[in-house]
C-alpha cells in the first residue's frame, strides 16, 4: 500500500540525484535495441515521405512520440493548410491521449518537485520509461532522477536511431518478421506482473481489459486506451469498499 499523500511540508523527500539518473538510464538498456529498430523504421518511412535527415531527426527530437509520428506519416503532405494542421494536431492529441492519464498518475510523485523541474521532466515521458518508473515507484523508489534518466536514454536512442534509419532508408528488413512489434507489449506485460497485489488489481485489470477491448471495436481511433484505463482505475479505486 502507498502511504497517504505527503503534505507540502515534506516536499524535500523527492530529490533528483546522480545515482537515480544512472539507475533509470541503466534500467532502460535492455529495451533499447527494440526501440532502435522502431526508430530506424520511422526514419526509413520518413525518408520515403521526403523528410531530410534534419527534418526526420527534428520530428523525433521534438515530438518524441513514436506511434503518433508513424500514424501522422500516413497522411503527410508537402503543403499544410490551416485545416490540415488542425487535423494533425487532433490526430496527435488523440493518438497520445494515454499520456494525459500517465502524467496524471505522476502527480503524487513529481508534484513534490518545483514546478519547472516537474514540467521539464514530463517532456521526457514516453510509454516505456513511464512504465519502468511506475514500477520503480511501486517498489518504494522516490528519486525523480530515475524518471529523468530513463527518459533521457530513451530520447537519445530514439533520435539517433531515427537519423540512422533515414540514412539507411529502404534497406531495412520487415520489423514484423523479427517480431519487433512484440517488444513494447511484452515489456508492458513484464511491468504489469509485479504490480499484482490481489483483489483490487483483479477488479481494475479485469474492467480495463473488458472495456478497452469493447471500446476498440466500438470507438474509432485510440480512445479505447483512455476509456479502458479510466474505467479500470476508477473500478480499482472503489474495489475495497465491500469487505
Amino acid at each position, binding site marked *: 500500500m502507498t502511504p*497517504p499523500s505527503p503534505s507540502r511540508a515534506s516536499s524535500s523527500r523527492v530529490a533528483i540525484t546522480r545515482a537515480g539518473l544512472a539507475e533509470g538510464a541503466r534500467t532502460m538498456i*535492455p*529495451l533499447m535495441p*527494440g526501440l532502435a529498430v522502431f526508430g530506424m523504421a520511422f526514419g526509413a518511412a520518413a525518408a520515403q515521405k521526403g523528410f*531530410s*535527415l*534534419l*527534418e526526420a531527426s*527534428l*520530428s523525433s527530437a521534438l*515530438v518524441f*512520440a513514436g506511434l503518433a509520428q508513424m500514424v*501522422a506519416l500516413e497522411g503527410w503532405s*508537402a*503543403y*499544410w493548410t490551416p485545416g490540415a494542421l488542425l487535423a*494533425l*494536431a487532433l490526430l496527435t*492529441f488523440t493518438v*497520445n*491521449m494515454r*499520456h494525459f492519464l*500517465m502524467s*496524471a*498518475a*505522476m*502527480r*503524487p510523485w*513529481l508534484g513534490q518537485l518545483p514546478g519547472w523541474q*516537474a514540467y521539464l521532466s514530463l*517532456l521526457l515521458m514516453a510509454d516505456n520509461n513511464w512504465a519502468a518508473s511506475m514500477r520503480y515507484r511501486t517498489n518504494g523508489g522516490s528519486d525523480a532522477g530515475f524518471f529523468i534518466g530513463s527518459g533521457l536514454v530513451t530520447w537519445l536512442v530514439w533520435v539517433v536511431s531515427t537519423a540512422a534509419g533515414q540514412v539507411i532508408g529502404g534497406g531495412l528488413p520487415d520489423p514484423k518478421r523479427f*517480431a519487433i512489434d*512484440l*517488444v513494447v*507489449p*511484452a*515489456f508492458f*506485460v*513484464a*511491468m*504489469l506482473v509485479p*504490480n499484482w497485489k490481489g483483489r*483490487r*488489481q483483479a477488479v*481494475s*485489470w479485469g474492467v*480495463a*481489459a473488458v*472495456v*478497452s*477491448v469493447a471500446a*476498440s471495436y466500438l470507438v474509432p481511433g485510440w480512445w*479505447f*486506451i483512455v476509456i*479502458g*484505463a479510466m474505467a*479500470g*482505475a476508477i473500478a*480499482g*479505486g472503489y474495489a475495497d469498499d465491500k469487505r
Partner: protein
Amino acid sequence: MTSVDPQTLLAILVMAAATMFNRASGFFLMRLVPLTPRVHKILDCLPGAVLVAIVAPTAVHGDLAMAAGLLAAFVVTRLTRSDFFAVLAAVAVAAGWRAFGS
C-alpha cells in the same frame, strides 16, 4: 540532407505542441483535484489499468504469434522477474511462430 522545409517544420511543431500538451495537462489538472485517499487509490490503479488497456486490445487484435509471445512474456516474468528475459522470450516465440507456425 540538412534542409528544413518551412511547411514541414510547421507541421512538426504542431505535433510537438500537441504531445507536450498531453504530457503536461494530466499532471496539471491533478493539481486542482484534491488528493483524497480515494483519488490516491484511483491514481494507484491507473498505471496498471493503462498497461492493460494497451495490452489487452493488442492481444485480441493481433495474430496468434502475438498472443503466444505475450503469454511467454508473462510466464518468463513470473519465473525470472526479469523484463529483459521476458521481452527476449516474447520476441523469440513470436518470430519462431511466424517463421515455422501456421
